[in-house]
Structures are given as structure tokens and as C-alpha cells.
């Protein structure tokens, strides 16, 4: 498009709508941008075709041109999606193009919503596009905690009912193996194992957002597969042993136990090993014991919380003090 739209016969019948950045108001507008001329021109044609709600090949080309200059322009993505459907374009081809754009602009999030809009079309994709997991792993190789990519992957699981798909848990385990501290992967695992399925609204935990259940009941499963919980707890223990000061598996295990309605106390023996003697290996183990002791042995619970406050996690002193005060109130 370097030659411009004004001299292009294909665009001869369109009157571009010039940018109004506020300069006309008489007051000098704020935070203006000295746009490159080709961007100014392309976006003035974009305003014109959008105002006419034009669904055409040339408009589709124009959206690509604007995206190439500014992929953060959310409007152009939404317009592009509408054109793709209106013209019944090949969406697999669009996905392939998107892959390249996504790898080029890792932080961009408009791309991911666009992808979701396309893939959500049951007509085009009655089942998941087969290459999706591979591409997502390619994205994770660039940034294994990319929030937008994980959000998309979560949606993919819900949309195509992939909770028990072997590939999902495999990829999660690959990522946790590579970096046991990848909390995004742990979150995805929780959602696969304990998240609400399609008979319930999407939520971070089951039982959420219902007037009849208390927030403390969020996450508690109505029916528990104890074998699956045991397997997951074993997995968490294995990962804790690799790096005991890693918060992710500890809180995953708490989530798993809570989901199953089981108590933190069943891990007491395992946890105590990290707090033996003078050498404490995990502040999370100390906190775990504090919670276990809080049930019946308040003095010991206070002792644990005091260790955290004074020695192992002192930046959170005020919080640990609050926890100690709460124990007193319960007693």
C-alpha cells in the first residue's frame, strides 16, 4: 500500500474521512501523535468504509494494512472479524496469518480476542482446529506466562470441552516440568481438574456466584473423585520437593484439598519435614502448619505465625500480626 489509497483506482469512489484529533476546536489537543502519512491515509479510508459499513475485499485488505502499522488498534480487529464472516472467508487461512502476527507482537491482546471470535464459530470449527495446541505451545515458548494466551486457552477448554483431553494435561505438565514456578500452568491444571464443567457457569471455582452458597464454599466439589485428588496431591508433593519455597504447588494442594472437602491436617507429616530443626526449608510449610494448628493448638499456631513474621516472611509482618490477632478472637 506504499503507493497510497488516493491514487488507487480501487478506492476512487471513497471519500476519506480526515482525522479530527481535536485541532479544529481551537484549543490545542492533548497527547497528539505525529502520525506517519501512510497511517493517516489508511485510517481516514478506514473511517469512511466503516461509516458505510462496507463488507468488501478491499476493506479487508485495508484492515490488514492498518493492523500492520498498528496492531493495538482494537476497532480495526472488530471490523475485520465482521468482514471475514460477511464474506465467508477461509478462517483457517486467517488463523495461519494470525499465528505470525501473534508471534511478532507478543504483548498484543486484541489478536487473542479476534482469534476467539473466529474459533467460536461452530459452523467453521465444530471441533478444535487441530494445530491450536502446537501453536499455543509455540507462544508459551516465547512467554510461558502470557496472560492473554492462557485466557484464550482457558476459553478453548470450555468451548470444546477439553477438560479431560490428554493433550491439555500433557502440555501443563511439560510447562511445569520446564519451570515448576509457572503459576499460570498451575492455574490451568486446577481448572482442568477442579474447575466447573459445562453444567455450571464459567468460574474460577465451582459454586461461585450463587446466592445460596457462601464464598467460603466456593471450590468445594459436590462429587469427589478421590483417586483423582490423591493423584493430584501426589503430583503436588513431587513438585514441592523440587523447590519447597515455591508458592504455586502449595496453594494448588490447598485448592485440591478444599475441593475434596479434606483437611490440611492430612499433610501434616509431609509438611513438618520442611520445618524441622533450625533449618526451615519452606515458609509455605510454616504457614500450612499454622493453619493446621489453628484448629486445636492455638499456641503452636501463634508460634508458626511468629516465625513467619520475625524470620521467614517479615515483609508481611502486619498480615501475620493480623492472623495472630484473629486466632485470639476465635479462642
Amino acid at each position, binding site marked *: 500500500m506504499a503507493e497510497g489509497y488516493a491514487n488507487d483506482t480501487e478506492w476512487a469512489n471513497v471519500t476519506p474521512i480526515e482525522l479530527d484529533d481535536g485541532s479544529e476546536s481551537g484549543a490545542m489537543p492533548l497527547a497528539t501523535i505525529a502520525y506517519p502519512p501512510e497511517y493517516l491515509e489508511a485510517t481516514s479510508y478506514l473511517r469512511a468504509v466503516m461509516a458505510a459499513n462496507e463488507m468488501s475485499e478491499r476493506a479487508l485488505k485495508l484492515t490488514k494494512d492498518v493492523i500492520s502499522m498498528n496492531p493495538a488498534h482494537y476497532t480495526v480487529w472488530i471490523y475485520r472479524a465482521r468482514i471475514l464472516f460477511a464474506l465467508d472467508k477461509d478462517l483457517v487461512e486467517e488463523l495461519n496469518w494470525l499465528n505470525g502476527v501473534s508471534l511478532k507482537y507478543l504483548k498484543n491482546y486484541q489478536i487473542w480476542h479476534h482469534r476467539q471470535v473466529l474459533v467460536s464459530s461452530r459452523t467453521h470449527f465444530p471441533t478444535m482446529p487441530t494445530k491450536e495446541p502446537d501453536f499455543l505451545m509455540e507462544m508459551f515458548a516465547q512467554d510461558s506466562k502470557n496472560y492473554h494466551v492462557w485466557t484464550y486457552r482457558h476459553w478453548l477448554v470450555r468451548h470444546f470441552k477439553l477438560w479431560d483431553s490428554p493433550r491439555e494435561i500433557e502440555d501443563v505438565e511439560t510447562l511445569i516440568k520446564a*519451570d515448576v514456578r509457572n503459576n499460570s500452568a498451575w*492455574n490451568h491444571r486446577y481448572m482442568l481438574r477442579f474447575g466447573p464443567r459445562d453444567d455450571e457457569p464459567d468460574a474460577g471455582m465451582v459454586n461461585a*456466584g450463587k446466592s445460596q452458597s457462601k464464598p467460603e464454599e466456593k471450590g468445594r466439589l459436590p462429587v469427589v473423585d478421590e483417586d483423582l485428588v490423591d493423584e493430584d496431591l501426589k503430583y503436588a508433593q513431587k513438585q514441592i520437593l523440587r523447590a519447597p519455597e515455591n508458592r504455586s504447588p502449595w496453594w494448588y494442594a490447598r485448592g485440591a484439598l478444599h475441593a475434596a472437602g479434606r483437611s490440611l491436617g492430612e499433610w501434616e507429616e509431609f509438611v513438618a519435614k520442611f520445618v524441622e530443626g533450625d533449618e526451615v526449608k519452606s515458609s509455605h510449610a510454616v504457614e500450612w502448619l499454622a493453619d493446621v494448628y489453628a484448629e486445636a493448638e492455638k499456641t503452636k499456631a501463634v508460634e508458626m505465625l511468629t516465625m513467619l513474621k520475625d524470620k521467614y516472611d517479615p515483609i508481611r509482618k502486619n498480615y501475620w500480626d493480623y492472623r495472630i490477632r484473629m486466632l485470639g478472637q476465635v479462642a
Partner: protein
Amino acid sequence: MPPIIAGRPRRKVRFPAAASANPPPQQKIISTPLATAPHQQRSQQRPQQKRPGETQPSSPRPKGKSSGMASQDEPRPGIPALFTQPPLIRDPLVTETTDLQDATLEKCLPFLKGLHTSQKGPFNACGVPALQRDDHVAYLYDSLEDYPAGFVAMDASRPWMVYWALAGLTLLGEDPTRFRERVLGTLRPMQNPTGGFGGGHGQISHLAGSYAAVLALALVGGEDSFALIDRQAMWRWLGRLKQADGGFSVTEGGEEDVRGAYCAATIISLLDLPLTLPPDAEKARAVGLETLTDGLAEYLSRCQSFEGGISGSPGVEAHGAYAFCALACLSILGPPEETIPRHMNVPLLLSWLSARQYAPEGGFSGRTNKLVDGCYSHWVGGCWPLLQSALDGKPQSPGAPQTTVGNLFSREGLDRYILGCCQNPRGGLRDKPGKHADSYHTCYVLTGLSATQHYHYRTDLSPSSSENFASAFSWQSSPVRSDDNVYEKSDCLVAFHPLYVIPHQAAANMRVWCEGQPIAT
């Protein structure tokens, strides 16, 4: 990014080295050379003699764990070991997460110790450098001017650029109302007749852009500003964004998330929009919802994750920015001591939120096993007054409550991180050492600093005459007077409303004016 000089007779935004070669002709207080490598100026002027032979501490990060990663140099006096030493427990296993964390620590430590050559000071008795108020003011004034072509990616964020700068300037004690005419001129072409503001002229309306635009108009205030907003159209547009599950999508055809929920609640309450669903709220009406706020709290409840924090949309990882959006939205919808415990598992939330603060950095991270970032001074820091108010319970008298659960995080840690690590030597604030300043970080780091300097509480008084959102308009603040403050009086900022992130009076003025101009439903 090639510097392109626009044909406009205006001053250009100055940018760190790579971005622009055009120094602004008429800077207020800029004394540093522009477009040169950072950290080189000022080393001679620095008011400290402790380490004459100091070199740039940008040493490569250490391989694996070691005791040698901390700088060997003695910190300035007055700095507790908590803020100069790596954490006591460190696992031997090295992964990408620990590599990044170690590199960050390595970068932060010289700043935390008050030893980095780029720190301007003067340093106080706590070893904390002063707020470079004049530099930040100049930076923000500058950020409202003309950007070079390389900043074209900002084209959909101009309402934000205006809000961030004006909010930051207001915090620093400047008067934003002098920008009224320019704000009106800037935002007018961004408003769509179908309701809401886009990121720029000809862009479809977006809740984030509309939020920023409404707040910018509240900041500059005045009847002309309030009257600029087509509230009737805004109300109808919000109806079209309302989803069957109670939440809001950010644009028509866009994604639904917690940001959308907070931006919508902010707009509805500040503009006193009718709560009744407009006729075109098809999705919401189809499932029997009756108001714009129906089902919204329940939607937010579904965004709490098993870790206790809150995610951008249900089922995703807990994240600090979304935690603020969700808690602020709940606190707009009703009194936080009612709405938060009704919809959130509070003990779990407290635990997760508290774990966002790291030592020795002192700052907040947004997620488990991620790095500290100055912007979470607001996103995470801003959750604390809301939770504190929820725990304190119903306000008892017009004044400050008699008893409070108190502050549950380390103000000292956050203030040290902000003043020690986040100040760019040439003005503006940043994510962390080694990153450029930008107006987003400048705004939210300063908002976070202001929040640590004030005690925020609710009263039973509201400037609003309406029952709706009475609690949201009942917040007041008083400066923290404590011997524990690690900042100086001269570092104190203006207080912001903890939900609307503008001054209390600016929020009240907009609300009261809108109450006087009811719109037909």
C-alpha cells in the same frame, strides 16, 4: 523509531534515547541532557561520597543462586536489612522464574541501598531518596504534548494518555483545570453518537477509553465538561454491553472482563445513569436481568480463583490489576463490608493479596511467581484500603472510625520501592530499574504512593442525595501521621478517592451535577 516532525507549531514530547531526537524547546525544569544514554548524568552532583569508584551496577546476572548476588557495598544508614538482603529461604533449583527474579533483585539492590549513581536524592535519615517532584511534574506536562510517529501504537489510547497525565499532575499538586479547554477539544471527536468514547476519532466506543475520558472530564471539572458527555447515549450503549452473565463486554463485539465491570460501574455511578436496563439491552433482558448492575457482583464472584486472588475473567489466573477492578466495583455497588464478604472468600483473598509484596524489593507483584512492578503500587496497593474498610465494618460516626484493623501490608516496603527504585532520574516513574518511565506507570506509581500516605475510611455522610451508590461517595481521607513514615513531608501527595482514582471533590462534583440533570429513561 524515526523522529518525524509534524507540521504543527507545538512542542514535542521528549523521550528516552531511542524514541526521539527532538528535545522540547521550552521545558520547565529539565536540566538533564536529552537523548543520551540514561544514568550518565549527575554522577558528579550526587550528594554522597561513600563509594567513589562505583561503576554502573548493571553487572550480568549471576548464574544460579549465590550469596554473591547482592552488592557487597554497604547500604546507606537507616535502611533495615530486610530491604538490602535476599530472602532467607531460596531454593537451589534454577528455572526461568528464578533467573528473572534474581536479575530483578540484582537490578533493584543498588537502588534499595541508595547507592545507584542515577539516584538524585537528597536521601533522608531512612536512606530514602526524595520525590523528584519537579522532574515528575515536568515529565507529565510534557507527556501531554505531541508524540513522534513511533508512538502510533498509542493511537487507540489517547483518552488514557490524557487521564494518566492529569491524574499524576493532580497528585503532585498541580491544577488540572487549566487544561479544561484542551481536554474538551481532545475528547469531543472521540465520543460516538451511539454512546461512549472510542480511543480516538472514528474508533468504536470502548469501556476503558470511556472510563479514562469520564475521569479526565471529572478532573478538569466544570459544567461544560460534564455536559460534553451524552449520558443518555452512554446509558443505552452500556445496555448493549451488558452480558447475560451479569458482566460487561468492553466494546460491542469485544471481550468481556473485570475491567469492563469496573469501568462500567464507575461510569454509571459518577454519571448517575439510570439503573434500569435500556430498551436495547437485549442480551441482559433475554435472561431476565432488570438493571445494569444485576448479576454483576455474582459475575465478579466467579472471577475469584482458588488462590484467592481475582482474574480478568472466570477461570483464569489471579492478577493484581483485576483484583483492584473487582474490589473497587464491589465497593461501588454497595458498602464494602457487605459486598466484599458476600461475594469473596476474604481470608483466601487476604492471603493472596498479602503475598504480592516481596522483600527485599518492597514492591508488589501482580501474580504468584511474577516480578514486582511499580504499577501494582496502585492495582494491588489500592485493594488494601477497600479490604481494610470491609474488615472495619459499617462506619459508626461522621468522623474516622474508632477502631480499625489497621494497615495489613508494609507501607515502608512499598514507599522504599517507589521512591528508591521507580523514579526515573529525568522525571517520570517506572515499572522497575532498567525500564523507561511512561505516563501509565507515573500515574499509578504516584497513586500508590499517595495511598500509603493517607488513611482512607468511610463515613455515613455522602454528598450525593441519592440512595444509589451512597457508600461509594462517603469516603474520606486523612494524612498518615506516623513516626514510621520513611518519606518526608515534602514528598506528600494529594489524596485520591480510592474507587474513582481522582480527588474526592472531583468525583462528588460530577455526581452532584449529574443528579441535577436526570435523564429520561
